[in-house]
């Protein structure tokens, strides 16, 4: 009985993970713009792979030799997907937009992607005339 329930749970994890990854990859070719296209792989595909890895953990536990290794890959993917997404978005901003197209930042400095100054960096969010962090 317990084994039957475990098999159903593992199968559900695998099927749902596969469907999520399929939706993520389909969104990659379906959505119109890079900034919208970033959503599909970084959210849906990562969740799909997480489901498959959890299913693999449950499968090895069902075989009698439980392993926690797959959790490492899951945590690694969940931690690194936003970083990659952020870098790709910054690269797109640097290539496709001009500084005057972007909304104002509300600080004394422009957007960090277009900030090509060689001056030493001062704290941007501190108002002028007040002591900021020691730089």
């Amino acid at each position: 009985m317990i084994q039957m329930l475990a098999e159903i749970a593992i199968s559900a994890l695998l099927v749902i993970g596969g469907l999520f990854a399929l939706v993520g990859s389909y969104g990659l070719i379906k959505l119109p713009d890079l900034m919208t296209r970033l959503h599909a792989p970084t959210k849906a595909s990562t969740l799909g792979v997480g489901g498959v890895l959890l299913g693999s953990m449950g499968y090895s536990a069902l075989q009698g030799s439980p392993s926690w290794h797959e959790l490492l890959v899951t945590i690694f993917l969940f931690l690194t997907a936003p970083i990659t997404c952020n870098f790709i978005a910054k690269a797109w901003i640097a290539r496709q937009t001009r500084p005057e197209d972007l909304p104002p930042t509300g600080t004394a400095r422009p957007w960090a992607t277009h900030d090509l100054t060689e001056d030493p960096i001062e704290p941007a969010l501190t108002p002028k005339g007040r002591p900021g962090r020691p730089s």
Partner: protein
Amino acid sequence: MIFYAIGFACACFGAGLLMTLWRVVFSPSVPDRILALDTMVVNVIALIVLWGMITGSGLYFEAALLFAMTGFVSSVAYAKFILRGDIIE
């Protein structure tokens, strides 16, 4: 039942891999290509894990972890290169 679920998941990830390959070949800009390659790495990790489940060997976990690390580092390095023209400043 698990066998059929593994087959279904393999079909899903394989179809996703073909879609990302299409996006790599016909991509409008370079950041799109990086995104498609990153998604391709994620799909391949899932396929490696599924193959490890089919064969019942624990060896494929190491390959999946190595693939995740090299995929992340190469994606970030490529994005950094087209962002600044240099990888390590």
